[in-house]
């Protein structure tokens, strides 16, 4: 039984252990690390990375890659800020518009990849340049968003708590801990898990990543699935851009620079095979949390440069890739 669980959830379990270990070590070393506030901040501070990483998980599961997500975040954030502050749109409309654009953008990349059998790496690299460029053309510098709607959303949890007849203190706590950005992240995560495991689209994604030729011969809609996967990733990165504006109250064409690589790292650390077909959306949450824990621990330490986060992630990534290869080998041996 344990052997079977290990086989099925091997890398996922390893990631969970690493995540827990890091959390405990940091908590023992640094005072206040074990506080709820820090814990909730893992989710709100990494919300836009996490949302983009959920979309990325699907792309990687399908055997592809999406390099455009970081640029899409920057592009989406500056378009929202411009629409709200320059054109005078309501933020909700601006966000909606950007979500549609992001989805179409992703779908067209997926369409190109499928229709002309192009390598996803190149197509999404082109998409990255395009999105980043468009962001700067829309507006050169960052724009801060002054619209009333934004603080209103941030006050929403506390307001709801008050409406639910909680005491003022409790409501304040709720407002402090329950960040809307974190809520959006967890919602996206839940929808992602549902899509991956409970829908045909999700299972087709695994099948396409597992063996595209077999998927075709089994009569699965390979082309449609690919387009949908990139559309989903486009949607997620646009949504991550919207969450970025909520997190910073601004739009910035440089936002999300190199974030696609962080997202890929989080997905891989979360146990998804870069070759496709194997992995879990829940693993991506763990990957994002590991990112957050290391970053926060280094902030707590104070004496270390924040670049140590990169070094730690680099090592973790290597270790996890090695671990996956070893697990794959044992799996492969079991079959012969």
């Amino acid at each position, binding site marked *: 039984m344990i052997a*079977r669980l290990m*086989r*099925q959830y091997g890398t996922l379990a390893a990631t969970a252990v690493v995540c827990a270990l890091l959390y405990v070590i940091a908590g023992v070393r640094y005072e206040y690390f074990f506080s709820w506030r820090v814990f909730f901040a893992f989710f709100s501070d990494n919300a836009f990375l996490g949302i983009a990483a959920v979309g990325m998980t699907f792309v990687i599961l399908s055997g592809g890659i999406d390099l455009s997500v970081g640029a899409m975040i920057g592009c989406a954030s500056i378009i929202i800020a411009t629409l709200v502050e320059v054109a005078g749109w309501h933020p909700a409309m601006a966000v909606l518009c950007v979500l549609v654009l992001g989805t179409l953008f992703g779908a067209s990349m997926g369409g190109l990849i499928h229709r002309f059998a192009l390598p996803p790496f190149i197509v999404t690299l082109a998409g990255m340049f395009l999105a980043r460029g468009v962001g700067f053309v829309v507006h050169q510098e960052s724009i801060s968003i002054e619209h009333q709607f934004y603080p209103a959303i941030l006050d929403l949890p506390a307001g709801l708590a008050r409406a639910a007849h909680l005491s003022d203190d409790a409501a304040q706590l709720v407002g402090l801990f329950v960040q809307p950005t974190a809520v959006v992240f967890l919602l996206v995560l839940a929808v992602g898990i*549902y899509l991956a*495991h*409970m*829908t*045909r689209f999700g*299972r*087709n994604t*695994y*099948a396409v990543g*597992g*063996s595209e*030729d*077999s*998927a*075709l*011969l*089994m*009569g*699965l*809609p390979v082309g449609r699935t690919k387009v949908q996967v990139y559309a989903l990733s486009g949607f997620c990165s646009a949504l991550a851009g919207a969450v970025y504006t909520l997190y910073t109250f601004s739009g910035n064409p440089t936002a999300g620079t190199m974030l696609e690589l962080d997202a890929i790292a989080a997905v891989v650390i979360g146990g998804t095979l870069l070759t496709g*077909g*194997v992995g879990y959306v829940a693993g991506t949450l763990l990957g994002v949390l590991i990112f957050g824990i290391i970053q926060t621990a280094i902030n707590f330490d104070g004496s270390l440069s924040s670049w140590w986060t990169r070094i730690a992630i680099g090592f973790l990534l290597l270790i996890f890739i090695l671990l996956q290869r070893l697990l794959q080998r044992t*799996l*492969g041996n*079991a*079959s012969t």
Partner: protein
Amino acid sequence: MADQLTGQPVAHPPPTPLLEMRSVTKTFPGVAALDRVDFTLRAGEIHALMGENGAGKSTLIKVLTGIHARDGGDILLAGKPVEPHSTIQAQKLGISTVYQEINLIPELSVAENVFLGRQPMKLGAIRWRSIRRGAEAALARLDLSIDVTRPLISYSMAIQQMVAIARALDVSARILILDEPTSSLDENEVTQLFRVMRRLKDGGLGIVFITHFIDQVYDVADRITVLRNGRLVGAYETAELPRIELIAKMIGRSVSDESAAEAHRETEADSTAKQPFVQVRGLGRRGAIAPFDLDIFPGEVVGMAGLLGSGRTEAARLIFGLDRADAGTMRIGGEPAKRTSVRRAIARGFGFLPEDRGRQGLVPDLSLRENIILALQAKRGWLRTLSRARQTEIAERFIKTLNIDTTDTDKPIRLLSGGNQQKAILARWLATEPALLILDEPTRGIDVGAKAEIQRLIARLRRDGMAILFISSELEEVVQSSGRVMVLRDRVKVAELCGEDVNEGRIMHTIAEAHVA
């Protein structure tokens, strides 16, 4: 098996056959892959589709499953004309195929593989429990009870094959095509598969069984359709077709053909006195060829005969060192040869003309000259480059001696005809002045004139003292060129014929002899 007596009229004249393909024609640029082929499949029969390489078996299946569009003819399913344009459409019509390389998703669970793309849903969510139950039920019909939640890859090839069959049957169950399903299975697994096939047949399914294992055909098939060179040779009741007749039909000779070898007998006697250039003892590789012995003497042509898939190429690859043997030894010129590799083989004077010259032999965009000097240059090492003048000289010499038809030495080789390409690759090895030349199907796909020339060349090389291992599906060629013939069946060396025994009839009989159980 013999429920109908030979010679009597068919006991139960079939009503409408399950599947009828009439005069199906498919032409690829320059080749008629199928030429007015008829094929009939009844409900409740296992029908073997037999033929050598290029016979048109796979093209026929691809036309039936919608992968290729046919150029002519009709396909009738239960009397109604159908036009499958894709595998999915064929599946919807009830025609499913299970391929040799199993087309499922290895990392996903067995249960999911059975239901991928058609999962039962409830309120927008997959009902995993009914998938598990359904998969268990589908496998139970094949007498298989396994943990369906484990990934497919954790099971043996045989079970994976069963899962593929279970899926095919569950998707649609009228015609099941099994394309070489037994090539990666061991004996027990084959028995298990046959039991399932018989059961499905009794349930009214029509099964098309493609294989090159003769014994298996006689084990399980009710009828046999033989194709050869894209044409229908005939359809027969298995019980009424002796093995020897089947083999004769597949290779296109008649059993009475006794055309004996000529021309080369004079050297045969003294060759046995000398030391063999290559002495193979118990050389074998699991799953490729059972351990075999073979001596090849200088100045001798040894033929290798056997049907497609009998292990001819595999044996040649072991001798050349392309694949590593897991048993046996080899002595070259009396010296023990340990750990063979292609580089060493070439250094020892081996040459190998591969079966598939397009993929394994030619460098299509290099010139004729460059293709010819390739092996010689590799043998010399890249530090000792052949001068351009010397290259041209060598190329021109071989163009003359082999009669290669080209305008100049710098023509890209892909612009030459098949026969001339083959001669160029032969020239490549001859330039290295090999002591042993392995020729795997050297005359396939080239015209009659070029064939005769290559055969004359083989005879000349033999007279010059070269040892030659000659592999061909065409028995006539083998018999004409070889002094001794090694006969293979189902990846085992079954006989070595020499002298008077080297004739087509004897070889066919040797191939046809059933296994002594």
